[in-house]
């Protein structure tokens, strides 16, 4: 994970701010099992990071996930195809069956198959091949 000299990953902060803009939120808290960050507008804003802190409890007002969003269960690297050069598992506009593999997230050499939780059409793919993804990040939106 890329972090600057303050121990902050500026990409995550930028992503969080972008999500707040997109969804009109004044505050966003987000994290994994070993860190979390809270970004807020106004004088309450601060970013926190620590081992003892657990992931933020999701609440509906803070959730950035739209309906049909498939989120990442793990911090890792996304792969849209089973091997380099192979066609993607799915493309925007494809109709998928429940349980169909959408993409892989690799962490510690474990490949996590992310599957369609329901049948539907792939409306958006929000990540690129080889991109680092965070816990809870929206990967694909089905409609």
């Amino acid at each position, binding site marked *: 994970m890329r972090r600057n000299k303050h121990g902050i990953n500026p990409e995550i902060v930028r992503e969080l701010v972008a999500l707040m803009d997109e969804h009109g939120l004044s505050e966003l808290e987000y994290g994994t099992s*070993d860190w979390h960050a809270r970004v807020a507008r106004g004088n309450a804003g601060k970013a926190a990071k620590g081992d003892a802190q657990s992931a933020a409890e999701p609440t509906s007002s803070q959730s950035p996930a739209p309906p049909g969003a*498939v989120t990442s*269960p793990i911090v890792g690297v996304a792969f849209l195809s089973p091997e380099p050069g192979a066609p993607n598992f799915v493309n925007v506009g494809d109709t998928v069956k429940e349980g169909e593999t959408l993409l892989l997230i690799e*962490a*510690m*050499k*474990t490949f996590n198959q992310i599957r369609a939780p329901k049948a539907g059409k792939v409306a958006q793919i929000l990540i690129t091949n080889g991109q680092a993804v965070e816990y809870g990040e929206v990967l694909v939106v089905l409609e």
Partner: protein
Amino acid sequence: MTSPQDQALALVALGRTESTNTEAHHRAGAGAAHGTLLWAEAQTKGRGRHGREWISPPGNLYASFILRPACDAATATQLAFVAALGVGRFLSRYLDAAIPVHFKWPNDVLVSGRKIAGILAESTMGKTQNLEWVVLGVGINIETHPEGVEWPATSLRAQGGNPPEIAELVEVFGQSFLFCYNEWQEKGFSPIRKAWLERAAGLDEPVRVRLGEESFEGTFVGLDEDGALLVLKDGDKDPSRVTSGDVFPMKVLAGL
């Protein structure tokens, strides 16, 4: 706590198959129990990470576990280390005590510095992105090993090992792995991490890390609590955390 049911090994002999991992996913999807171990005498489409081919002639060991741990996907990545330990302990039974067995992050098993086994862990998520099952595939070079691979390979036979017939080996491997798995379930990652570090290849030595097109070098200084590789780059005060990519302990490689 581990129930007796969790400890059972259900060995299934497939003969020749395309890929034990592929077959394991089919069977897991159809409800196969935790602890099912699929064994093939040869694979016609054996695969490694990123669809790389795992050449699978008869004589070597090809097997995939179906596991259903009650944990999240992040915790299940610790199985990479559990599997490496299981393979390492299994191999030590058939090797002279003077022959060193080491681990290369996270789950390569090296004998005399050469790669003897490959592990392919594939987790499948359910409807709520919960962990549904893990398929843990292993290929262990018993009689033969490939030449011309990125990290030099070896086999149990080439290392002077005297293995029994393959059917017995598979059973011993299955028990050896489940022993480590149950230790992980009961005591958590800490003892697994410690045992792995005791046999880490190139600890406190120079290491190169390759991530896609990029790579960097530093000193391999340890593992963090989650199993991420800690690499201290020259001039940095704190080590960098590596959770993805290929790792090359340079001194070990130079000595081969």
